[in-house]
């Protein structure tokens, strides 16, 4: 099979799955089987692509050429493959989880849910494999539109308001900032292709600074303050959506865009020289701290996790903006590490909601006695986010700290370390209290989440540990970016 065909298959498979889901709408079991199977096949395909592709001679699939010189094209590169691997691995896992969650929770419109989910994955894959900024932008917008029905799934007034914030901020920033940044880039550089080392050549530093600011704040999906409000708003969605889309696919699409732009449009060396990059790194640092601080005040578990995500996303933005190789490696790895850690936490939050009907952190004391497995997984996820061994988050934090040291920015190093402490204070504390403090009402014995959900939690929690023990393939893949 030629690699171009493989690319096409990877993009189309989730979209076709959406059709399959709609066709099988009257048979829930078959419908879910379609989703899970496609997810597994998709991961195998992406892995096959990752294994066989040679970066010097990557395949290129041109879908259309709407503007002369700007093709709608896919071309894998290492960062994109990493993102695609994560998204395609976690999709079937989340689907398995969703089977337990959606049924136990008696959600309506499940067909629409699974179909929109599949389209969202297709869009995320498109972002991951985009050969140029134009293609990336198209799938970026598609992802916003495709996730909208998922965010507003409940159909209540609250969901509708949240949907407005979601769409308004994401589409608003992309139209107001990202689109002109892209058109301006096209005007200046005459190309939007992702090129190692950047596309600008000799362009005035001030112009580049303005452009970089437009690109970074235009990428609303990265949830940099002050454009972060959509993420807590999106928490009205069912938990599987929050887990995969708002801890992995959508938000990672945002930071991935920023990584791509920094590495392939500006070039790391040129980022290092830009004044704006320093300011943006400071903004990211601010978001890291404020996100953590706000998270501490949230009693609603999902809201707390959402603010934690906002904080963690800015780690990656920070990695991209300090303009060192280690920063980019750390950022790229953090895309994966945070994905596994945070999805575990969201899965646990959903499991707690379904099994114990609790949504607030303050109600979770002693829950370790009724839901020991869930709470254990929560601990694993939280520790990985903090960045303690033996969990995957260690490596990404290591490289990020290394990056700030290389750049000689002591303040930023301090921010990263301080943030780790804050993580302990608002995340790790939850399972500790769950295990150690006696519940207000004596527990009624074991009462875990549905088996499929528990299975998914297990997979991602073990993933956190596996990523600590064998980070090498991942590290090598991300390292390719800098070759």
């Amino acid at each position, binding site marked *: 099979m030629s690699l171009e065909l493989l690319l096409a298959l990877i993009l189309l498979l989730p979209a076709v799955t959406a059709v399959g889901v709609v066709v099988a709408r009257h048979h829930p079991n078959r419908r879910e089987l379609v989703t899970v199977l496609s997810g597994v096949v998709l991961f195998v395909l992406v892995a096959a692509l990752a294994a066989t592709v040679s970066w010097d001679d990557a395949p290129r699939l041109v*879908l*259309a*050429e*709407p*503007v*002369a010189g700007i093709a*709608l094209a896919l071309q894998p590169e290492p960062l994109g493959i990493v993102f695609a691997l994560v998204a395609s691995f976690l999709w079937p896992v989340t689907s398995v989880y969703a089977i337990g969650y959606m049924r136990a929770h008696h959600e309506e419109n499940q067909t629409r849910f699974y179909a929109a989910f599949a389209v969202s994955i297709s869009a995320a894959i498109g972002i991951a494999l985009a050969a140029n900024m134009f293609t990336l*932008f*198209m799938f970026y*917008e*598609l992802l916003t*539109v495709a996730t909208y*029905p998922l965010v*507003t799934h409940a*159909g209540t007034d609250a*969901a*509708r308001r949240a*949907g*407005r914030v979601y*769409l*308004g901020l994401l*589409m*608003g920033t992309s*139209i*107001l900032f990202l*689109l*002109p940044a892209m*058109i*301006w880039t*096209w*005007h200046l550089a005459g190309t939007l292709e992702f090129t190692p080392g950047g596309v600008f050549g000799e362009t005035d530093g001030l112009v580049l600074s303005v452009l970089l600011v437009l690109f970074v704040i235009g990428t609303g999906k990265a949830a940099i303050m002050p454009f972060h409000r959509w993420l807590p708003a999106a928490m009205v969605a069912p938990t599987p959506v929050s887990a995969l889309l708002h801890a992995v696919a959508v938000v990672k699409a945002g930071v991935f865009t920023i990584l791509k732009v920094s590495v392939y449009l500006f070039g790391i060396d040129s980022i290092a020289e830009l004044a704006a990059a320093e300011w943006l790194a400071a903004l990211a640092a601010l978001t890291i701290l404020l996100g953590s601080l706000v998270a501490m005040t949230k009693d609603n578990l999902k809201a707390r996790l959402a603010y934690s995500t906002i904080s963690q996303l800015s780690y990656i933005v920070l990695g991209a903006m300090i303009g060192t190789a280690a920063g980019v490696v750390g950022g790229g790895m953090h895309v994966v590490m945070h994905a596994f850690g945070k999805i575990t936490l969201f899965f646990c939050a959903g499991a707690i909601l379904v099994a114990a009907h609790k949504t607030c952190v303050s109600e979770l004391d002693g829950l370790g006695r009724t839901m020991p497995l869930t709470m254990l997984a929560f601990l694993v996820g939280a520790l990985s986010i903090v960045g303690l061994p033996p969990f995957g988050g260690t490596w990404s934090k290591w490289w990020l700290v290394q990056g700030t040291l290389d750049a000689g920015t002591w303040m930023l190093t301090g921010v990263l370390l301080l943030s780790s402490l804050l993580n302990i204070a608002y995340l790790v504390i939850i399972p500790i209290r769950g295990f150690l403090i006696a519940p207000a009402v004596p527990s009624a014995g074991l009462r875990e989440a549905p088996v499929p959900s528990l299975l998914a939690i297990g997979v991602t929690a073990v993933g956190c540990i596996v990523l600590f023990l064998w980070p090498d393939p991942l590290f090598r893949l991300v390292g390719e970016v800098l070759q």
Partner: protein
Amino acid sequence: MSLLEHLPVLVVIVPLMAAPVCVLLDRGPAAWSVALGAAVLSLACAIGLLMQAPETGAISYHLGGWEPPWGIEYRIDRLAAFVLLIVSAMAVVVMLYARRSVEQEIPEERTAQFYAALLLALAGLLGIVATGDAFNVFVFLEISSLASYALISMGRDRRALSAAFQYLVMGTIGATFILIGIGFLYMMTGTLNMQDLAARLPEVAHTRTVRAGFAFLTVGIGLKLALFPLHLWLPNAYAYAPSVVTAFLAATATKVALYVLLRFKLGIFGFEFALREMPLDTLLAILGIAGILSASLVAIYQDNVKRMLAYSSVAQIGYMVLGIGVATASGVTAALLHLFNHALMKGALFLALGAVMYRLGSVSLRDFSGLGWRMPWTMAAIAIGGLSLIGVPPTVGFISKWYLVLALLEQGWWPIAVLVLIGSIMALVYVWRVVEVAYFERPADDAVLTGEAPLSMLAAIWLLVGANIYFGLNTDLSVGTAQEVANLLMGGGQ
């Protein structure tokens, strides 16, 4: 072979002759068949013309064999062929759709007359585009306008009558201004042939008469175009006209008016005079941006969805005019491109609204509640058309926005580019109001429970929705032609 030579006139004559046939038949279904047949023939002619039209220069057709500048000349260059194609293609789609919609909205005894008027409007619009004679433009303009007044007044809502009357008054003022403008030009040059005018005008360009003529033409065409602030007739006319008429006019009439603007200003007066000596570029840019912002703002507050889209049309005309106001080849490209793309968007949206009207008998926002479930295909079409209006890729709206913003940035018009994008955000707001109501609100208890629109209507709607996406991905025809034509127009007229 000889038939092919006559394509420039056939494209106009066919619907013109078919109109009386409709009246004579005096039966709805038969009249519809004739109208559809005429539209299809016109489309075939237009396609033939686009294939024949040379890259530079034009096909010149001498009506009755009289040599220009004495006789009337039909002149088909790339631009004309392009606009002919848009108008006739939209006519075919609208005709396909019309049968069921008209059955319901127009009393049976007037159906035949309705189709006759529709064909006359079509013939008028095609004639304006095909002709190379300034006075002939006025004649065809009146044919299409009179037909449109009649068509609008056939709306079921009684307010259609006053809307039609309002349009009649404003339209007549516009036509009169155009006629005065043409008269002034004739006074100074003694010719009505556009080619001839273009050749003779530079000698007398400094005279006050020519400048006054220029001004009269600008205002007159501005009225027909519904250029802000001369747009007051448009929202009512679109809102209360029969669905078919709204879709047809929105997709074609304003486009042809823009064509007339380009033809007169750039074709006859020439780029140097129109945009450099006279301050038309500044004027158009200012009015364009004012139109975009104010009309979009008003659209947000409309409760009648058809009226909302009508205001949106005024805003979209602002985009096109702004493109011309940039006064560069890329600006004119953007304007022409949006001319084509906007026809697709608004055609799709107004046809979809017609389907809603067909089932619910109303297009006010209140009645849209729950429509996402009751008419899923129609509502999906409105959502996709709306996304195109906002300018989300891969729709045509995105391509338009891309070229317009690029043209603005090339000139360093930063603030204007930002305003254009704010216009997009406003479009997001008014489109999403409809989407939210349709998908989130449960229908009121007394709402008529209805199913999907008839297949023939859906087919026409989705044909256009498909075109919105197809031409968003493959822009060889739209961008290619727009660029060619823009370069030609900016290269000092022809």
